């Protein structure tokens, strides 16, 4: 077991070895001459890049470096850099050069040119890292320079499998400070004063929750980290767990100290095997060092953490269903007769917070509530991590101060819409959220503002939609997800969402009827007001918000049997215009022989036979095939 003094010593010693990594936090390209000898290749090991075999890339770097006889070059894999769109991403320090879409075969070139000759390989530079011939430091790239990282502070810098690197960047200092210098009330008050609100979606004030559990007398209390992230396209929590697992462990231990719990559980979905593995390593290291377990840092405080794996049910992200699951029962929500903070897991006071919430706690304890409150808005302080996806140029993980507008996130950080199409809407909050149209793009992103316009912050999914996306179809997509994931316990959610989906399927298939919109509205009402848990209560949001902002699209489907976005297959037909040069390519590619025509004459599609596969459109060399 180590003492507070030894913790400080580890910090200082490790920090010395990490000097190159700290250049990531600087903002200027260093003098190339001075930085020739000692270098660091940092490879992104985030969820996206990791799937491109970064371990092998690292080995290839090391091999070439050895062949070239370079001695002062270190190669390291870190957590997610965020810009998943352009992965695999690699950064070179101390210069801060940002390479993207690096393939295995590019590695030798980087070593030979950049490391040996000190010449930047311009063709591999990230598009954002070069502007009118001037190479930018990675932190000056547009994607990064509006971001502010608190929850992701260590992601992409430290080696996630080395507790010492976490300690070097102030890790476990907050815990040491709390348990040696602060009372439980002081910790709770600091979290309360910071106005930190739950990052899992609902935004309940974290400090108030902790206080409720603290004040309730019981022989045993529990801390649960909700890592059952399941929104389609969301990977905020996964990236934190994979890139900086100790920040979550430390946040949980702080919560344990504050409320008086000795046991914590991380409920994580089994579909996150990498995160599970890294958490196991992190817990083991923390225990070996005496930062978890009995008598932490020689004090009276003991706190242990175990993992509980979820079996893939989305509903288990709901607090009460999650506890049922940990207790070994079927993961179905239970009515909240008592507050979870009074009677939760096994009937004991329990705090359930989301991964990102816990990751925010250590910096608050170290830098103070005022610092945290100075970031973000009055309503919501701090930052929020979003998984930016859909039809946006820079898909990836972003962390921005609360109050940043949707426009800034989508157009400045996200780089605007793919293929420069027209923006249509942004969907926030996953299946529980809503679609926000263009007129609200300047809405600041915080808990209050988003709910005012019919969406929610949610856990951080943000899907950008363009003019080619059909809003009825988007609503159908999310309802399909909810219907699949409904646990089947309560009537409004089990029966109601299914009926809603059936109506949406009918509308998108061109069989919508006049009464469908009224029926959707009355179903939305009962599902929202009558369902047992949050999943059901918010399940209708994608429909409610699209009906509110895009009612004309619903009406076009129902009355005109037309899909304005041209996305609903059943409502469109393929047609060959007079641009046709009679090359016969379309006729030859048609799998059902629905296209007739002579060579060098205009071809015709038999719409009766056509199965709308789009093969003709793809092969036409002159763009004569259109959807209408």
């Amino acid at each position: 077991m180590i003492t507070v003094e030894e913790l400080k010593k580890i910090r200082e010693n490790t920090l010395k070895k990490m000097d190159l990594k700290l250049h990531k936090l600087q903002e200027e390209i260093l003098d190339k001459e001075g930085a020739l000898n000692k270098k660091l290749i940092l490879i992104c090991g985030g969820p996206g890049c990791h799937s491109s075999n970064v371990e092998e890339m690292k080995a290839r770097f090391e091999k070439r470096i050895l062949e070239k006889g370079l001695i002062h070059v270190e190669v390291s894999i870190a957590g997610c850099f965020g810009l998943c769109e352009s992965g695999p991403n690699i950064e070179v320090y101390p210069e801060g050069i940002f390479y993207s879409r690096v393939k295995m075969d590019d590695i030798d070139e980087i070593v030979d040119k950049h490391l040996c000759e000190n010449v930047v390989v311009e063709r591999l530079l990230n598009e954002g890292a070069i502007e009118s011939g001037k190479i930018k430091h990675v932190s000056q790239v547009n994607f990064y320079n509006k971001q502010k990282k608190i929850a992701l502070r260590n992601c992409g810098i430290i080696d996630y499998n080395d507790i010492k690197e976490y300690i070097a960047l102030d890790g476990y200092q907050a815990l040491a400070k709390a348990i040696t210098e602060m009372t439980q009330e002081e910790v709770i008050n600091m979290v309360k004063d910071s106005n930190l609100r739950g990052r899992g979606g609902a935004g309940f004030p974290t400090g108030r929750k902790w206080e409720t559990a603290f004040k309730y007398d019981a022989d045993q209390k529990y801390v649960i980290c909700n890592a059952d992230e399941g929104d389609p396209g969301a990977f905020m929590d996964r990236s934190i767990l994979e890139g900086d697992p100790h920040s979550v462990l430390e946040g949980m231990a702080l919560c344990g100290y504050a409320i008086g719990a000795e046991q914590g559980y991380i409920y994580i979905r089994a579909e996150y095997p990498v995160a599970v593995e890294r958490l196991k390593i992190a817990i083991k290291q923390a225990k070996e060092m005496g930062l978890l377990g009995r008598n932490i840092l020689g004090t009276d405080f003991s706190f242990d953490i175990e993992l509980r794996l979820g079996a893939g049910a989305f509903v288990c992200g709901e607090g009460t269903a999650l506890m049922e699951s940990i207790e070994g029962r079927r993961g179905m929500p239970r009515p909240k007769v008592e507050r979870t903070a009074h009677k939760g897991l096994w009937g004991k006071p329990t705090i359930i917070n989301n991964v990102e919430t816990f990751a925010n706690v250590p910096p608050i304890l170290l830098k103070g509530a005022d610092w945290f409150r100075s970031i973000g808005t009055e309503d919501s302080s701090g930052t929020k991590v979003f998984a930016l996806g859909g039809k946006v140029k820079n898909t990836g993980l972003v962390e921005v101060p609360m109050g940043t507008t949707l426009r800034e996130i989508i157009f400045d950080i996200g780089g605007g819409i793919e293929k420069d199409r027209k923006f249509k809407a942004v969907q926030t909050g996953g299946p529980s959220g809503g679609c926000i149209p263009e007129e609200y793009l300047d809405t600041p992103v915080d808990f209050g503002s988003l709910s005012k316009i019919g969406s929610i912050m949610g856990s951080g999914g943000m899907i950008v939609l363009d003019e080619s996306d059909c809003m009825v179809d988007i609503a159908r997509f999310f309802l399909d997800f909810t219907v699949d994931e409904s646990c089947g316990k309560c009537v409004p959610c089990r029966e109601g969402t299914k009926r809603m989906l059936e109506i949406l399927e009918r509308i998108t298939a061109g069989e919508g009827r006049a009464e469908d919109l009224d029926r959707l509205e009355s179903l939305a009402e009962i599902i929202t007001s009558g369902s047992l848990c949050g999943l059901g209560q918010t399940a209708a949001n994608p429909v409610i918000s699209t009906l509110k902002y895009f009612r004309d699209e619903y009406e076009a489907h129902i009355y005109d049997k037309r899909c304005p976005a041209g996305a609903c297959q059943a409502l469109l037909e393929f047609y060959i215009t007079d641009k046709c040069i009679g090359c016969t390519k379309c006729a030859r590619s048609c799998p059902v022989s629905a296209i007739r025509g002579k060579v060098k004459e205009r071809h015709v599609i038999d719409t009766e036979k056509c199965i709308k596969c789009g093969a003709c459109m793809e092969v036409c060399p002159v763009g004569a095939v259109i959807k209408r």
Partner: protein
Amino acid sequence: MREVNVVIDGKRVTVPEGYFIIQAAREVGIDIPALCYDPNLEVVGACRLCLVEIEGSRKLQTACSTKVRDGMVIHTESDRVVSSRKEILQLLLDNHPNDCLTCQKAGECLLQEYAYRYDVKFREHYGARRPSYVDTTSPYILKDDSKCILCGKCVRTCSQVQDRRVLSFGGRGFDTRIVIDADFNFDKSSCVSCNRCVTVCPVGALVDKRLLNKGRSWEYHKREVKCKVCEYGCSFEILSKDGRNVAVRAKEANGGRPLCLKGRLTTEFLYVDDPDKPYIKGEEGFIEATWKDALGLKDLLDKLLAHEEEEMGVEYNG
């Protein structure tokens, strides 16, 4: 115990702290409809029919899982509440066979009662329905999945007896079903035919198969008796029609009383005028048996008779 004062539909009532709204309402004769609530079982809040309006609360709350607080003003039949109930009942009827004419449960079915009370009707629609799987393998219990409303009472009552826990939920969402063991039929399952589940089923999804075609619920004269097989003394009902005892059925297993097949058969044999043949469960499912075997009395009776013969010189020619 501390008491609290609440006002329900204008009626003032004083009840012990810790009471749920639904309990308090019953004290003043207000029947809040509920399909999944049972005072003997764990509260689950699944059917959502008992939603009520509480002054000062934006959302409707379920009366089965919300505890009374001093000064609470509750409306159990406001316009908003009634329209929610209608929607919920409509959702249930949309997924329920229109079979009330011949359903054994008619007259005692809670869904039927509430649909009538709130004037909700069956209607045509093109949507999906629950698959109509009927388990006919048991001579004691008929399980019709198409009529199930998934209130889960059967699962809860079954799991109250440690070594039973035969029924559970299977699948999820719209495809959720009540399954027996690892989705077996009754004949190959560990079910002991105690009929606890039948006694709590609010609809015709689990019915006592020995009652089929014996009569309609409103025709019976009912008389309660206590079973004499063991010291629990579970309650049974003797159902008689036109002066004849036609059947026996178990009453709800409250107060820790377990219910069992032996008790049921014994009561049936004792009271019913012309009881159906009994069945016992073997390796290959249910087989017809003699009453002596079914009641487990063979050894006892044989010895008793031999004993009587020896002592009293009575010749047994049975």
